[in-house]
């Protein structure tokens, strides 16, 4: 692998970007959303053709007309958005359309499962290849995706945000796989918004901003601040400065909440916690610890067995999101595309979704819609042409801002945010954090669920750690550190 160099004409997405990857190197690619990372990788994968410039592999010029050609050349991509067939088995997913065959086109199942088993072992996923993919956790599905990439015996593997749905421990597992690849001479391109990971795994880093290369650096010779400065062109204040009075009244209290015994897999057991006015409470834990389930149970989506929910000291009856909203609770869903946004509707319509009553029962006020959306567009710095454009045309960070704006309009006393910055770039991430701070300053109680430990440590005043459906412990801002959280989160799991 020798060198790639290309530029785009017309709509200039990449301006004379050069990118070199050596064998056995982990090369990180960073930049804000829209900086051109995906376009660059799509050219390498044969999805797009370069307008100008050349791609060279091991010194030889080549063109990559389509994805199939890229696969033949040994270029494999692990996509951010999983592209698996849920109801098929792991093995069939890995070898989709390339199953080993016996005579008459019959699938050779024994070989299929054997080869799948070998690949799974390399990724460290301990599952029977006959298991259907929908039974796996998101993290395990990610590993299947990696096994699929490995099945092409690639010379280059591109990881696009591979850790956005992984917990800390799973991330370390993934890094093990990447180091193995590296040791066997494979060139790895690693795209991530999480700079800390890049310092752990990568050898070199290339920063893109507005389609231009802002420099390729040895990681030993740079720092987080330097990278951020190059990515956004300004330095960002990332730390939460407020000290919150511990004496504020309790806004949300959950007492002994458990799943009903009747469900097949009860998860939540005897959960009690609280959040005070003006406080940001973090909920940490591994994937599957029950954080999202807890949020859904409080929000009236998931049925509850026992337990009480108190808002401002008064017990409330919540059996549906409508009742939760009426009680003053908001919930920013974990997956904004699945549970937060109406993608083909306009920004204005999305912002209005959770309080349609405000805009009139029988004489809907469209101008008011737009006026409200314009207000949020300015205050949240949502980058868009007009608030009448559809949400699907926005970048991930701006979509997340719209999802938040929907709840800011409701103005809840208690806001639960579930993975508020997943797949969001550094600049937008800081803005989302700033938003949570100002919300708490205005007197709301914020409950933040996140798998991103530095984020949780950064924004929370107090942290609860969940493990296997229970609260494993509570840490004050002063006592909390990545080690103490991880210890609580995985104590009995090991």
């Amino acid at each position: 692998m020798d060198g790639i160099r290309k530029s785009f004409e017309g709509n200039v997405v990449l301006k004379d970007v050069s990118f070199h990857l050596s064998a056995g190197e982990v090369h990180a690619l960073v930049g804000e959303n829209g900086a051109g990372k995906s376009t660059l990788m799509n050219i390498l994968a044969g999805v797009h053709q370069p307008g100008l410039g050349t791609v060279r592999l091991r010194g030889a010029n080549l063109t990559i007309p389509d994805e199939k050609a890229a696969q033949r050349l040994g270029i494999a991509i692990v996509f951010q958005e999983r592209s698996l067939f849920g109801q098929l088995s792991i093995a069939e997913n890995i070898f989709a359309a390339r199953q080993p065959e016996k005579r008459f086109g019959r699938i050779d199942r024994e070989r299929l499962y054997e080869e799948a088993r070998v690949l799974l072992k390399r990724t460290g996923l301990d599952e029977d290849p006959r298991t259907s993919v929908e039974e796996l956790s998101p993290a395990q599905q990610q590993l299947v995706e990696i096994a699929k990439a490995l099945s092409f015996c690639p010379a280059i593997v591109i990881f696009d945000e591979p850790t956005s749905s992984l917990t800390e421990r799973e991330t370390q597992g993934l890094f093990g796989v990447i180091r193995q690849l590296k040791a066997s001479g494979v060139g790895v391109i690693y795209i991530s918004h999480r700079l800390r990971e890049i310092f752990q795994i990568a050898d070199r880093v290339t920063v893109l901003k507005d389609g231009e290369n802002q420099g390729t650096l040895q990681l030993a010779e740079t720092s987080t601040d330097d990278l951020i400065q190059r990515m956004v062109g300004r330095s960002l204040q990332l730390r939460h400065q407020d000290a919150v009075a511990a004496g504020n009244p309790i806004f949300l209290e959950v007492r002994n909440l458990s799943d009903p015994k009747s469900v097949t897999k009860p998860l939540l057991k005897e959960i009690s916690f609280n959040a005070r006015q003006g406080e940001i409470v973090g909920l940490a834990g591994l994937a599957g610890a029950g954080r999202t389930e807890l949020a859904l149970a409080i929000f009236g989506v998931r049925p509850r067995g026992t337990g009480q929910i108190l808002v401002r000291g008064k017990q409330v009856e919540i059996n549906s999101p409508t009742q939760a909203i009426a009680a003053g609770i908001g919930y920013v869903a974990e997956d904004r595309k699945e549970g937060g946004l109406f993608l083909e509707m306009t920004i204005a319509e999305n912002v209005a979704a959770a309080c349609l009553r405000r805009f009139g029962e029988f004489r809907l006020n469209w101008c008011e819609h737009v006026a409200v959306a314009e207000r949020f567009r300015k205050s949240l710095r949502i980058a868009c042409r007009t608030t009448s454009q559809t949400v699907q045309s926005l970048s991930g960070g701006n979509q997340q801002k719209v999802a938040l704006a929907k709840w800011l309009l409701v103005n809840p006393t208690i806001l639960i945010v579930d993975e508020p910055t997943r797949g969001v770039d550094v600049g937008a991430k800081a803005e989302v954090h700033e938003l949570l701070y100002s919300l708490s300053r205005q007197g709301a109680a914020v409950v933040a669920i996140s798998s991103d430990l530095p984020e949780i440590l950064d924004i929370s005043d107090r942290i609860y750690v969940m493990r296997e459906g229970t609260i494993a412990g509570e840490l004050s801002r002063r006592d909390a550190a990545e080690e103490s959280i991880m210890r609580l989160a995985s104590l009995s799991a090991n």
Partner: protein
Amino acid sequence: MPNSDVQISDPLVKKKAAQRPGLFSREVALAGVTIFTILLFWILYPTSFGNFRNFSAIVRNLAFEGILAIGMMIMLIGGSFDLSVGSMASMIGVVTAALMKGWNWPVPLAVAGGLLVAALGGFLNGFIVAKVKVNALITTLGTMGIFQGIALLIGGPGITYLPESFSQFGQAEFLGLQSPVWVLIILALLAHYAMSYTRVFRQFYYIGSNAKAANLSGINVQRLQIVSFVLMGMLAGLAGILYASRIATATSTLGVGAELQAITAVILGGASLAGGRGTIWGAMIGVFFMGLMKNVLIISRFSSEWQGIVLGAVLVAAVAIDSVVNRRQSP
């Protein structure tokens, strides 16, 4: 990414920007094709096509399907659909006729009774889909057979010679158009207003666009799904009653195939099976276009077998063009 700060200060521009987006929409394109077809046949057949009696006949024949299409459009916008509407129309026509002929109920009471049965049938559909969580295709495929069976059980082939006090409404004319056409126009205007300006009905766009997100935004998805099925049932029942009134006969097989005609019309008019898209006026253009095509095929002396072929081709072509254009717009 650079933020192009386009300041919108002109109130007129603002109002326009508030409308739903999409420069190329299927309903606008279809309206164009419809006007083109009318002009073409006006020139080709000035005497047999281009006269008021012919137009009156076109709209009279589409009152039935038009009322079904209103309901079907609301269903599809909400991401659901109902295959039992044709059978429902047949059943309610027969039930209403049986109430006034067999049981000697007064006409208004018989009509109310018929509509009540329609609402119950719709509720049954809605309950099974929304609460029991059976797929809408399977549920309404089942009730389609059930309603048709009930219609045949009660009415045999049909109930004829309905009382004049009943048939005089369906046969009445105003400004040269029969009363079912006026009912259609009024219902379409009401539905258009409801889908554009009332909170309750606007929620169907949210549900069709993303039901999970709608639920998490506090929209009562299950209840609205049931409402849409009840409404659809009552519209289908009303269509059946009006048709029976117009021909003074309740035919047990009146609605055979009407569900597919209605779905075809609303998809032509801009709806999507995925939900969240469509307008009532689009549904009306879809229905009118289908009626127009049948009419011009007859006038230009094609045999009736050609109707299915031409409409089928137009349906697939319309959706295909839409899909290609949309793909080009968003790279």
